C-alpha cells in the first residue's frame, strides 16, 4: 500500500488558483493601479479581467494587404473626446470598459438594453480582416472580432418606419477631456441608412487581434463600415437608435463643408484641404492608391443606385 506523505509546500489541486486568474493577474494589477491613479471605480475592473470568446475568421472579406502590426493600430488613434492628436491611447485607458451597456431603441418592436457580456455571449462572433481608410488619407488593416449589425437589429425587430440608424457614443465628462469644449454638439453622433446598417459588411466590433477591443480603438464596442471613411465609425457606443429622420452627425454639425452624412471613400473626390487619391499605409509608410468604396465596391455599390444627387463622397 502506497502511503503518500505530502510535504509542507504541496497543496491539493482544489486549492490551486484558477487558470483564468493566473493569466489575468497582470490585468488585475493593472486595473487596480489604474483605479488608484484615476479614481475610477476600480474594483469591477480589477475583479474581472476582460476576455473575448474565441471567434473563427470569416475569409469572405480578404483585405488584399498585410495586417497592420497591432502596436501601430493601438498607438495611432483618432478619438476626439480624448484630443485631436494621435497619442490619446494612454488617456483613453481611463475609459471604464465594464460595466457597459448599449441601449437599442427608437422605432423597434422590442427595445432593449444589452450588457456587453450579453452581446459577447449571444451574438454570432466572427473575425473579419477589414481595411480602414481614414479621411486623413492613412489606412490600416485590422483583424476585428465582432458580429454583423444586422444580428443586433434582428433582436429588436425594426419597424417599417425606421429609415436610419443613429449611433451615439459615450460621453463621460470626468474621463474625456474633449468634453470640456462645451460648444461642441456632444455626444458624438453618427448614422447611416437602414439599408447600410442591414448590409452584411456593417460590423459591430468588440475585439481586435483576438483580444477585447482597447478603449483607444473604441472599446468595448464600436461600429465599422469599411467602405466609409473612418470618422463614420462611432467608438465606445452606448446607444443605437432606429429613427425616421436622417441624424445629423457630430462632424456634419461642426464642419459641414468638409464632412457629410454619407462619407463613402472615393479617391476622385478630394477633401477640401487635401487629396484622397492615395493613402499612407500604417506600419509601412507606403503610399498606395485609394480605391473606390475602399475596395468594397462589389459589395456595396448597389446601395447607392438612384442616389447620384446625394453628396455620397463627403
Amino acid at each position, binding site marked *: 500500500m502506497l502511503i503518500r506523505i505530502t510535504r509542507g509546500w504541496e497543496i491539493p489541486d482544489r486549492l490551486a488558483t484558477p487558470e483564468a486568474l493566473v493569466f489575468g493577474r497582470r490585468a488585475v494589477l493593472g486595473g487596480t493601479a489604474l483605479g488608484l491613479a484615476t479614481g475610477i471605480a476600480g474594483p469591477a475592473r480589477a475583479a474581472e479581467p476582460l476576455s473575448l470568446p474565441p471567434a473563427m475568421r470569416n475569409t469572405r472579406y480578404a483585405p488584399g494587404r498585410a495586417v497592420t502590426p497591432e502596436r501601430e493600430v493601438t498607438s495611432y488613434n483618432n478619438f476626439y473626446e480624448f*484630443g*485631436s*492628436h*494621435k*497619442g490619446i491611447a494612454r488617456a483613453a485607458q481611463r475609459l471604464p470598459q465594464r460595466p457597459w451597456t448599449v441601449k437599442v431603441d427608437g422605432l423597434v418592436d422590442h427595445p432593449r438594453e444589452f450588457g456587453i457580456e450579453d452581446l459577447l455571449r449571444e451574438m454570432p462572433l466572427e473575425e473579419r480582416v477589414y481595411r480602414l481608410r481614414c479621411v486623413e488619407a492613412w489606412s490600416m488593416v485590422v483583424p476585428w472580432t465582432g458580429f454583423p449589425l444586422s444580428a443586433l437589429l434582428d433582436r429588436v425587430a425594426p419597424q417599417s418606419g425606421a429609415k436610419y440608424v443613429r449611433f451615439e457614443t459615450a460621453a463621460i465628462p470626468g474621463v474625456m*477631456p474633449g468634453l*470640456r*469644449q*462645451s*460648444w*461642441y454638439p456632444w455626444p458624438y453622433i453618427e448614422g447611416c441608412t437602414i439599408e447600410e446598417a442591414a448590409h452584411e459588411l456593417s460590423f459591430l466590433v468588440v475585439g481586435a487581434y483576438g483580444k477585447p477591443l482597447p478603449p483607444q480603438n473604441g472599446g468595448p464596442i464600436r461600429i465599422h463600415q469599411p467602405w466609409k471613411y473612418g470618422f463614420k465609425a462611432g467608438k465606445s457606443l452606448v446607444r443605437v437608435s432606429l429613427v425616421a429622420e436622417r441624424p445629423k452627425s457630430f462632424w456634419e*454639425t*461642426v*464642419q*459641414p*463643408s*468638409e464632412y457629410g452624412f454619407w462619407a463613402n471613400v472615393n479617391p476622385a473626390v478630394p477633401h477640401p484641404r487635401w487629396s484622397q487619391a492615395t493613402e499612407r499605409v500604417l506600419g509601412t509608410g507606403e503610399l498606395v492608391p485609394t480605391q473606390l468604396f475602399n475596395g468594397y465596391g462589389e459589395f456595396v455599390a448597389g446601395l447607392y443606385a438612384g442616389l447620384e444627387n446625394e453628396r455620397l463622397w463627403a
Partner: protein
Amino acid sequence: MRLAGLLLLALAAGLGLRLGWGEPLGAALFRLDPGLLNMAQAGIQRRLAPWLWDDVLLPVLEQPSWLVPAVLGALLLLAAALRRRRA
C-alpha cells in the same frame, strides 16, 4: 496704451452685452466659425504639443468671452498709469 486698454474694456462690455455674460469664449468663436477651433486644436496638438491646448488654451476658451479682453484692457490701463506716474 491707455487708448488700447479702453478699447479692450469697451470690447469686453460689448461682448458681454451682445453674447451674454456667461457664454464661454470658445462657444462665441464656435458660433462665429464652427470649424475654426477644431482646426486650431488639430494644428496645435499635432504640430506643437497636446498640453498646450489642454492646459493653456482650453482654460482660456472656457472663460466667459468678455473676460479675456477685460483682463487685457485692465492690465494695459494699469501699465499706462504706472508709466505716467514714473514719468
